[in-house]
């Protein structure tokens, strides 16, 4: 019996896990669901020893344990099958299975490959994979690699006493339907050897496989349901449920957009492997929100508009002109402004001050013959510092030292002061406190009033619904459904989740 007791984890500015209780019994399959950012990954990392909790205890069969790293967790029978596969593709299957544990096959300083192959074959038999252990891993299909990874984790069985707990992080995301069924059958059979924690975005699969399901939201476990009482609708409501405060998202300030003009037009645009056949029009004054899980293609659409990805098919129009060259410089000239998710890495330049950051995208407006008119830059910065109430001691302050909310305001000021009217917002409120979030919402409404069009990838679904005029729901790179979101007539969270998963 593996048990978490009131486990707490804090990061600067984020309370990632709030007194989480979690148990898993021998041979049990436990599902773990929640929105992006609900704390699933943090919880998993605590379980397999990558993070150490700030509070609470972890016990195995009643004995308190503490893992300094994943290897120590493994010594207690806890293994992880990674979503991003952790196998080294240019090694053979058996080398991968016993990576870091080759010692058992060493005789007189050299590895006895025959013995290793024999042992690897035994491990592969557990997962019913009939391949030569000397196969180079890159020759295997993704489904086979997943099984090898599982076999690798199952070697714990021979190495340790006690029960195994195996974490499966999105194991089905790259598998075809039949492969998923095979995996599920296998996992059920393996419950005689181990218990499993199953994390997936695909709700139906979680319901199908799990004996019990933990529902997480905002760092806390909000519900635990058994297989028999589980119901997709109820779980989805729990996952997102929270009454949406209309004022919070400035819904009363939402005005109709100008449907006559089109700022950005996508007509059946595809980027191979990322998204396909995406069409939409962005109008002045409109907030268009792209909703979907991680990897659904939302970010890539933003990157296409900003010229960082080149589509293979379809036409992209900007202000009427068909785009043929996809370069960030060209996009900026067309009035596109990009507020990236990685604010500290892509948004601001740490080490440069406020005015240097604000004019970075529009230096030629503040230069004659390549020579900067620094006085004007400072004036501009002072104006926008006042206008957006940016908290900084002066315009000479290094932006790397500002708080997240103020950094975000500098990034927005950079684009708005340069006259950009197609604003791409990728998680603009991620990691901000409530006050700073509301500032961002205010700015979004202001930009719309000023005639800008905004494409938003929101941090939460409530945010998406509260802010947008139009919502496109994406799944696996395809638009599933388009919702209109006039104030008072917005789609519900459930409507969206239904098409997302």
């Amino acid at each position, binding site marked *: 019996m593996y048990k978490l007791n009131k486990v707490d984890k804090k990061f600067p500015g984020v309370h990632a896990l709030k007194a989480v209780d979690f148990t898993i019994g021998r041979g049990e399959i436990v599902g773990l669901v929640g929105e992006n950012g609900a704390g699933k990954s943090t919880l998993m990392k605590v379980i397999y020893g990558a993070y150490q909790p700030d509070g609470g205890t972890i016990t195995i069969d009643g004995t308190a344990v503490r893992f300094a790293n994943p290897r120590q967790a493994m010594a207690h029978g806890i293994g992880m099958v990674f979503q991003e596969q952790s196998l080294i593709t240019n090694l053979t299957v058996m080398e991968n299975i016993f990576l870091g544990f080759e010692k058992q096959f060493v005789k007189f300083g050299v590895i006895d490959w025959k013995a290793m192959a024999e042992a690897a074959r035994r491990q592969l038999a557990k997962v019913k994979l009939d391949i030569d252990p000397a196969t180079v891993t890159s020759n295997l299909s993704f489904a086979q690699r997943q099984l090898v990874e599982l076999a690798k984790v199952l070697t714990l069985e021979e190495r340790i006493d006690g029960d195994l707990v195996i974490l499966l992080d999105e194991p089905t995301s790259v598998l075809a339907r039949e492969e998923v069924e095979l995996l599920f059958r296998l996992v059920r059979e393996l419950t005689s050897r181990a218990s499993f924690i199953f994390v997936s975005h695909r709700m139906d699969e979680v319901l199908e496989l799990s004996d019990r399901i933990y529902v997480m939201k905002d760092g806390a476990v909000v519900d635990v349901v058994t297989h028999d009482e589980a119901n997709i609708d109820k779980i989805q409501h729990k996952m997102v449920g929270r009454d949406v405060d209309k004022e919070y998202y400035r819904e009363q300030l939402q005005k109709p957009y100008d449907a006559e003009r089109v700022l950005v037009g996508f007509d059946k645009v595809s980027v191979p492997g990322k998204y396909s056949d995406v069409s939409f029009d962005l109008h002045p004054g409109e907030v268009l929100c792209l909703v979907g899980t991680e990897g659904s293609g939302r970010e890539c659409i933003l990157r296409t508009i*900003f010229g*960082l990805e080149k589509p293979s098919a379809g036409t992209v129009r900007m202000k009427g002109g068909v785009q043929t060259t996809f370069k*960030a*410089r060209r*996009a*900026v*000239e067309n009035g596109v402004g*990009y507020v*990236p998710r*990685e604010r500290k*890495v*892509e*948004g*601001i*330049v*740490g*080490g*440069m001050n406020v005015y*240097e950051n604000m*004019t*970075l*995208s529009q*230096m*030629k407006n503040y*230069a004659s013959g*390549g*020579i*900067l008119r*620094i006085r004007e830059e400072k004036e501009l910065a002072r104006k926008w510092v006042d206008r957006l109430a940016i908290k900084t001691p002066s315009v000479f302050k290094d932006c790397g030292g500002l708080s997240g909310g103020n950094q975000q305001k500098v990034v927005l000021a*950079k684009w708005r002061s340069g006259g950009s009217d197609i604003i791409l917002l990728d998680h603009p409120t991620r990691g901000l406190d409530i006050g700073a979030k509301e500032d961002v919402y205010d700015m979004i409404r202001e930009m719309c009033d000023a005639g800008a069009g905004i494409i938003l990838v929101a941090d939460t679904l409530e945010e998406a619904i509260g802010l947008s005029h139009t919502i496109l729901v994406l799944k696996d790179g395809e638009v599933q459904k388009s919702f209109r979101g006039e104030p008072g007539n917005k789609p519900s969270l459930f409507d969206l989740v239904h098409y997302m998963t």
Partner: protein
Amino acid sequence: MSLDRIKPHLPWITLLVLVAIVGGADSNFLKPHNLISMVADIMPLFIMALGMTFAIYIGGIDLSAQSVANMTTVIATVALPTLGISAAVVCVVAGLAFGMVSGFITTRLLVPSFVSTLAVGGVAYSLAQYLSGQRALYMDATLRDGSFGWMVGKSFGIPHEIFVGGVLLLAMLFLQTRTTFGRALKAVGAGELAAVASGLNVTRIKVMAFALSGMLAAIAGLLFSVKLSGGSPTLANGFLLPAIVAVLVGGTPLTGGVGGVVNTLIGTLIVAVIRSSMLYFEIDATMQQMVFGIILIAAIAMTIDRSKLRIVK
């Protein structure tokens, strides 16, 4: 926290401390004419380091600088009789061209700059050997004084090399602090991804940084060649390590983004003082490169911004 505050001031504090130590050991060191001639002697190295600053400022490095300088000593000597002062133009253009090639290889073929510039340096070195017939060449004294005498004369007791270095420093300082190019360099060095996300043409900026580095290496070679009145494919050997040391000790870390040309001036002076201190402390000349090697390692270890090297998840 307090260490972070002191860090930007370390270079000039180091310089003052070194000057005090050497001056305390031998007061002759502090005599003005000695200091002036020390500074004048270091100018070719300083000009090379000035160029190197741009390569390092964007987070790269230019290992071709020494070979490009070698090459221009030969070009200058070979071209002087026919072209006169225009030989300087040939040198500068050659330096620019080699730097741009390094830049293109780095940005278009995505070869890290420490490899691309090393390779381009090989080409420059071979060209120098070919042009010189692998011999040391000498400039005709009258021709040299006629075309380039102004580089090495003296006014008001100050050697002209110092003016050449000073003018280049001011020009590069202006470029670095007052122009869009300088601002773009800083953005690329401090946050390349943010520079891309702001729509800057990062490729062009990088190519220009390497071109500048090549150009200044060429000018360094030209000045050195005029000073020694000749050229050879090995004339500037021994410049590369101290030039890199000068940039790093001055406070422009290998990760780029901070520091700049004034820092390199201080770094070069530190190198100059260390070099002359070896004379005063009677350290054998063969030890010089070893000393600079050790200082280089210490300087990198102290200045590198480890937060930029951490794996970001």
